[in-house]
């Protein structure tokens, strides 16, 4: 027992040794600047010393509260929509032979290679009042649909960007599922639908959780898409961070807003880790 413990400790030490360079790098380029942001959020441009002025300002202004809720609302909607699009896609890709899958992978990756800004302008051409979709609709004799400069536009634009981030964790999970399980279930008489529902889907939950977490954290920081494709009410916290950091040059305010945004993402990560199967994504025990 004692010997096993010693071995385990040795193993832990060896792992720690290999982790040191990465840890030092993360400390220098990530933790220190992040700490500076947190500290800065408790300062003020007006006077030195510790103050909660920025947080008080944020909590007392209706704009910040409203925009925070809107950010959460848009994030959840975009994540749900991306999941709905990505799961069937990942499922289909997992069933294809490797060469075909590689081809499909490239297609999924294409949105990665264009800037969000350019894509947002391109969406105007497709979804606009006299765009491709509405032209097609009017040929069918139907009234035009408003697909842009409202919540629909924001969700379409964001999902388009986010789908790859959802596809890859789910796909890698599906590919790693033992094929024998499906065969076993099939031999025991389960239909295709039942196999999916009782075997594949529950086993894929860690992948889904990873995708959801990744996409949610990304969505929380969006601001170009809502600004270009949204309506006047679609405003996100990141816009306010940008405003305070670059226009007002009030860095304590920008920091405080960032800390709130970061806290929200952290809470999302913690909630996910509490869900069974969710902890695997966050580096927990996978056995």
């Amino acid at each position: 027992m004692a010997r096993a413990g010693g071995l385990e400790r040795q193993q832990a030490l060896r792992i720690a040794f290999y982790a040191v360079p990465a840890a030092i790098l993360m400390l220098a380029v990530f933790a220190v600047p992040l700490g500076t942001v947190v500290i800065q959020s408790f300062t003020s441009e007006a006077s030195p010393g510790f103050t909660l002025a920025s947080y008080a300002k944020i909590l007392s202004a209706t704009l910040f509260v409203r925009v925070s809720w809107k950010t959460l609302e848009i994030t959840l909607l975009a994540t749900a929509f991306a999941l709905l699009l990505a799961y069937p896609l990942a499922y289909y890709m997992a069933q294809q032979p490797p060469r075909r899958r590689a081809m499909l992978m490239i297609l999924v990756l294409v949105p990665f290679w264009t800037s969000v800004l350019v894509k947002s302008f391109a969406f105007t051409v497709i979804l606009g009042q006299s765009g491709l979709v509405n032209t097609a609709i009017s040929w069918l004799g139907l009234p035009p649909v408003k697909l842009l400069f409202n919540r629909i536009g924001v969700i379409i634009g964001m999902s388009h960007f986010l789908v790859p981030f959802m596809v890859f964790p789910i796909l890698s999970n599906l590919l790693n599922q033992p094929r024998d399980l499906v065969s076993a279930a099939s031999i025991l008489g389960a239909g295709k639908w039942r196999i999916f529902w009782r075997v594949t889907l529950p086993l894929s939950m860690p992948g889904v959780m990873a995708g959801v977490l990744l996409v949610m954290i990304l969505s929380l920081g969006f601001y170009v898409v809502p600004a270009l494709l949204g309506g006047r009410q679609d405003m996100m916290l990141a816009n306010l961070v940008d405003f305070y950091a670059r226009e007002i040059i009030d860095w304590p305010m920008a920091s405080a807003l960032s800390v709130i945004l970061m806290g929200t993402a952290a809470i999302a990560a913690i909630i996910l880790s509490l869900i069974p199967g969710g902890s695997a994504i966050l580096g927990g025990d996978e056995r």
Partner: protein
Amino acid sequence: MKILRSTQVVSRRRLLAMTTGALAAPFVVVPGRARGAGRVVVVNFGGAIGAAKQQIIYTSFSRDTGIEVIAVPGPDLAKIRAQVQSRDVEWDVVDLLDSWVPSGARLGLLEPIDEKIVDRTGCYPETRHAYAVGGTIYAGGIAFPTDRFGSRVPQNWQDFWDVGRIPGRRGLRNRPSDIIEIALIADGVAPKDVYPCDVERAFKALDRIKPAVSHWIAQTAQTVSLIQSNETDFTFTYTTRVTDMQRAGVPIGFSFQQNILGVGWAGVVKGTPRKEAAMRLCAYIARPELQVAMANLTGNAPCYAHALSKVEPEARKWMPEVGDANNLFVDPQWWDTRVEDLTRRFKEWLQV
């Protein structure tokens, strides 16, 4: 195990070499700032106007002085502040937006303009600032499609607000600057009486136009692209955006009644080791004859009344009458301390 050890020995040696190399790199690869007065780093907004600056201003400056100009894109007041605070100034001359000039001066991010080096005799007073030189005057106003409405388009801000008489979708910006001024002019305030702005009156006027505004535009490029794609009809935009569209064959027009005028500024970053070279470049930016050459290329007006007559007629057509009582120079000083509260109020107003 043996293999592992042998690779470790090699990698340790290599690691040592690499580490030494990495540590020595800053001393071998001399950064720009260490080279002294032989060069000057200038930051501009790029695009066609950035190219024109390179062609006209930087080239003649380098030819005359022998000082090399390194142009980089993306002026950003926050980055200027980061450089000043860390005492690691890499930028020397930076193009500035109207609103950055008073805040940059207030926050101590800019060097005062050296009047002994920079000659601004005869420029419009609105284009003169103790901490920045005016390089150009740009004009904002109403853009409209020329194919959809015939002559029933708004030509001034009263028209723009008169939705009953001139129907059509409107597009304004999603920020208060310019928009507060426009609302007051639309409400009947004479341009000379706009400052200090009656904010309550402006918001009341904005309440009236709000239902007719289809877009509160975030990006300047959208002010004309939305007219082109028939998403909106009449917007607030700038002359250069309209000429770009016209060149591309888009049926779009611009009104020269009641223009909102702004200044394209440049400033010198506080604490630059190349201050003198930077000031000398500012002197070139302020030169009337170079501003005329810039105006011919870009369509933005020079900062001198006497220079305007030297602009080629074709480019002159796109320039506002600077002295016209119907036009308004934005006053960044008025905005300086108010922009935060007004932006918050404006965004809240947009949310409901």
